[in-house]
């Protein structure tokens, strides 16, 4: 059931419905994560070819929400702005988890460094979910990626970039690389800033610290 939320949506409000003994939690989570990855590969490899694009987008979001649940991450997300047509989401980068936090809230196409494509499983999944891979340091490749981003934005899709180009600690921002923002400028389409903020706290009911991540969307 969805909690009554004004501007925040909360996924997986009940992260630990069953209290497991401490020594079992880690193996159970790792086991579930493995199963979830297998399910993800099955979806992307065998189910996606049968589905229409909207259903694929839906599966990607639902899979990401479940991933957060498996990992015990409680995500609180402000409602994504209801913009007509395409938009460029610009976000800080804290960890690989950001990608699934954003997917849980909104279907976007990420722009990622080309090395990620070579990562086992994750790289293939990223490819299957429509990630654009950019070879950093090659100027000509920026032009190619910009053209692909323009095509997506013009078709009404959202594209997401991490313009810091690398992960930060979540407390401060590094310098933004401007080249990936160009397609939004050319198409005059909205830029949606988002922030991934990780919060840790302990309460009397939760013996172990839980991770909560907030991504906030606002207006430029």
């Amino acid at each position, binding site marked *: 059931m*969805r909690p*009554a939320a004004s*501007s925040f949506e909360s996924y997986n409000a009940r992260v630990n419905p069953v209290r497991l003994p401490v020594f079992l939690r880690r193996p159970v989570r790792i086991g579930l994560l493995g199963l979830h990855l297998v399910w993800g590969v099955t979806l992307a490899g065998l189910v996606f070819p049968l589905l229409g694009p909207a259903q694929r987008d839906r599966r990607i979001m639902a899979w990401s929400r479940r991933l957060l649940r498996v990992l015990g991450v409680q995500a609180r997300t402000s409602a994504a702005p209801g913009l*007509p047509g395409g938009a460029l989401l610009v976000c800080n980068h804290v960890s690989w988890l950001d990608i699934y936090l954003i997917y849980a809230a909104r279907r976007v196409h990420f722009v990622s460094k080309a090395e990620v494509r070579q990562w086992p499983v994750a790289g293939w999944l990223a490819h299957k979910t429509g990630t654009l891979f950019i070879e950093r340091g090659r100027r000509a490749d920026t032009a190619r990626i910009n053209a692909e981003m323009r095509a997506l934005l013009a078709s*009404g899709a959202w594209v997401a970039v991490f313009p810091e180009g690398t992960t930060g600690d979540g407390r401060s921002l590094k310098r933004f690389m401007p080249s990936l923002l160009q397609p939004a400028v050319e198409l005059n389409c909205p830029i949606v800033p988002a922030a991934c903020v990780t919060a840790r706290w302990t309460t009397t009911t939760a013996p172990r610290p839980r991770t909560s991540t907030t991504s906030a969307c606002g207006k430029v």
Partner: protein
Amino acid sequence: MLDIRTTVQATPAGRYHVSLAVDDNEIREAQRLRYKVFAEELGARLSSVLPGHDIDMYDPFCDHLLVRELARGEVVGTYRILPPEAARRVGSYYSEQEFDLTRLGFLRPRMAELGRSCVHPAHRGGSVIARLWRGLADYMTRYGYETIVGCASIGMADGGHIAASVHRQLAERHLAPIEWHVTPRTRLPVESLDDGRNAALPPLIKGYTRLGAMICGEPAWDPDFNTADLLMLLPMAQLNRSEARRLIV
């Protein structure tokens, strides 16, 4: 080049927010609203496996548009969209239970079907339906579908006279060209039901025709919902843009 679009509403404006259902819980929310409207309010006979839910075999294949009231997070409006890829997997469009769609064969690869439209009784001011149409317009452009079809239902509590009158009025001004005509499987005998009076057009059908939708022939009788169903068709290329801008938020 750099003129900032300040007119774009970035925060969800007003009371409502439209989105596509993502997980099964959200689809359940839509099914509960549908049950509330179709079974409890309109008295449709629904054979559902889960009490309080309107569920049918098309649901798992469909995309469900939801309008939520922001204050309480409750789903207050929904549309069900069956995209062409899903229709291929199921084997048919929902309307094919009532109409023979053979003539629409060449439209099928890019034809999405709309159905199960409903709005919570406490939210029928028109802005929820505008939100749904906004979501639908974005969906159609995003995924590149070219035609919308769907059954528009007219209640038959009066025995069908209103339905026959609505059909006659629509046939005069909004009849699709002959190549898009379809044949109802259980035809409503309109000529014997029409008493010549002009009944008011249901608001939803009026809205559709304003946007450029046409009817594809005579109505079919749906005994489960006790409605007369007209197949309506809207090619996105013929969408009345100025009207759409006015009606859709």
